[in-house]
């Protein structure tokens, strides 16, 4: 059952006024303009035990992604494909409002939006993950770990997932006569095959303004948010409206244009980080 959030402190209307006032002058509290994301920092290889990993800071928001690659069974209707699974944990050290326990609707929505955006465009080449068709394939687990929450978990998480996947290596394995597969965790077959790069751009609608990459305070005063997933070719590869309010037809057009444009900043950050790593 999804419930109107009732634990969130009511935002004083004065605060909203302050923000709207700034926006009207094209400004934000942290000196950004309306359409520029916060500073992005991407560090890869932060967890050596994972097959791929990344720590992403987007302003004060921090997300870690770990990729683990295990042997498993394919889905019945796709015997010739590996499996990609995205999971998100809002660990309680990230925010005073997060509580221990199984993922809530926000964590589930985050994981599913990232998962679909990767899956629908075929970001990871699942056909390269077959060991024995219909029997044994590689399962790629992407675990998103929110460490510090200052708004816009979607974009930070997608950057972390992408950086971890693009630096992940496929482990080697040994096949016994019994058919049993043993993963050789210390030996690599080479990099995981990633065919597409995807980023999401989250905008918030606050009054009549559309702003890119909202902070936690901006999320609290926003009417709704839109998460637009974009690939390296500028195609829309996923989209999710989230939050309680609606958009006019005209606002939707603006959101798409703003998002496609802002996506370039994220692509650049990713490229630079991976080049450094390279």
């Amino acid at each position: 059952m999804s419930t109107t959030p009732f634990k969130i402190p009511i935002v004083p209307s004065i605060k909203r006024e302050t923000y709207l006032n700034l926006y009207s002058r094209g400004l934000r509290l942290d000196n950004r303009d309306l359409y520029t994301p916060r500073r992005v920092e991407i560090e890869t290889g932060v967890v050596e035990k994972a097959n791929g990993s990344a720590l992403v800071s987007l302003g004060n928001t921090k997300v870690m992604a770990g990729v683990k690659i295990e042997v498993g069974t394919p889905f019945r209707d796709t015997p010739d494909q590996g499996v990609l699974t995205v999971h998100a944990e809002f660990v309680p050290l990230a925010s005073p409002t997060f509580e221990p326990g199984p993922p809530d609707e926000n964590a589930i929505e985050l994981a599913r939006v990232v998962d679909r955006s990767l899956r629908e465009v075929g970001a990871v080449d699942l056909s390269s993950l077959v060991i024995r068709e219909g029997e044994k394939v590689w399962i790629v687990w992407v675990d998103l770990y929110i460490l510090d929450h200052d708004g816009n978990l979607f974009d930070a998480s997608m950057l972390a997932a992408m950086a971890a996947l693009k630096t992940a290596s496929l482990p080697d394995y040994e096949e016994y006569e019994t058919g049993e597969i043993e993963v050789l965790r210390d030996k690599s077959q080479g990099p995981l095959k990633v065919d597409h790069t995807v980023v999401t751009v989250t905008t918030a609608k606050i009054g009549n303004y559309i702003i890119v990459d909202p902070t936690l305070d901006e999320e609290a005063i926003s009417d709704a948010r839109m998460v637009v997933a974009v690939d390296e070719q500028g195609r829309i590869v996923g989209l999710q409206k989230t939050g309680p309010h609606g958009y006019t037809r005209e606002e939707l057009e603006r959101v798409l244009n703003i998002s496609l444009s802002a996506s370039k900043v994220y692509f650049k950050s990713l490229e630079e980080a991976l080049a450094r790593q390279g």
Partner: protein
Amino acid sequence: MGKKGGQVLITEEGLRHDGRRPDELRQVRMEVDVLENADGSALVEFGGTKVLAAVYGPREPIQKYIVLPDKAVLRVRYHMAPFSTSERKSPAPSRREVELSKVIREALESVVLSDLYPRTVIDVFIEVLQADGGTRTTGLTAASLALADAGIPLRALVGAVAVGKIGGTLVLDIDEVEDNYAEADMPVGAAPDIGLVTLFQINGVMTKEEVAKGLDMALNAIERIVEMEKEVLRSKYARVGEV
């Protein structure tokens, strides 16, 4: 051109596997006040998709701590009957059902005049009885009708429908067969009387232009869907008036 697994999804004449034109809805059936206990209820069918919605409230919740001082709390559950799908679905809520409950709740938040009922909850229960594509949009439409049937004041009625992209062609109100082969699925929910899109998702790959065209198709159809909702509610009240 949209031909996979031996199934011709769009014919040379531009017709779909069930004979519909690209911008044609399936047969839509709506009925309100179908349950006795609920304060409001509706059954909505889009082709083979059948969804029941019921509303209870505004009422006091058992867990008192969930109320808000300035408005009603909306609670929405989207749930699939175990026999609604091809393979039996376990009745435990799946991650998909958790997400869709949230997406539908957020599509309703802005039309329910919840400020009128502080310290209460309004419960919306959506049960998919048969799933043949478009269950979330059919569920949102049924929820809107059930809220109106319960007499809950609304800013506007909400209607919803999905647009799919099959072999590069945009088609309205895709069913399960089409969804299985579609390159993209774009569910849209809107309240035409106040000009707001309140549910919007894209699963799949589309260009900006396709999104714009798809939105036009969806919003156009939603106007007709909301007209049907009004008609159904009018005839109910007419009926009530006659008694």
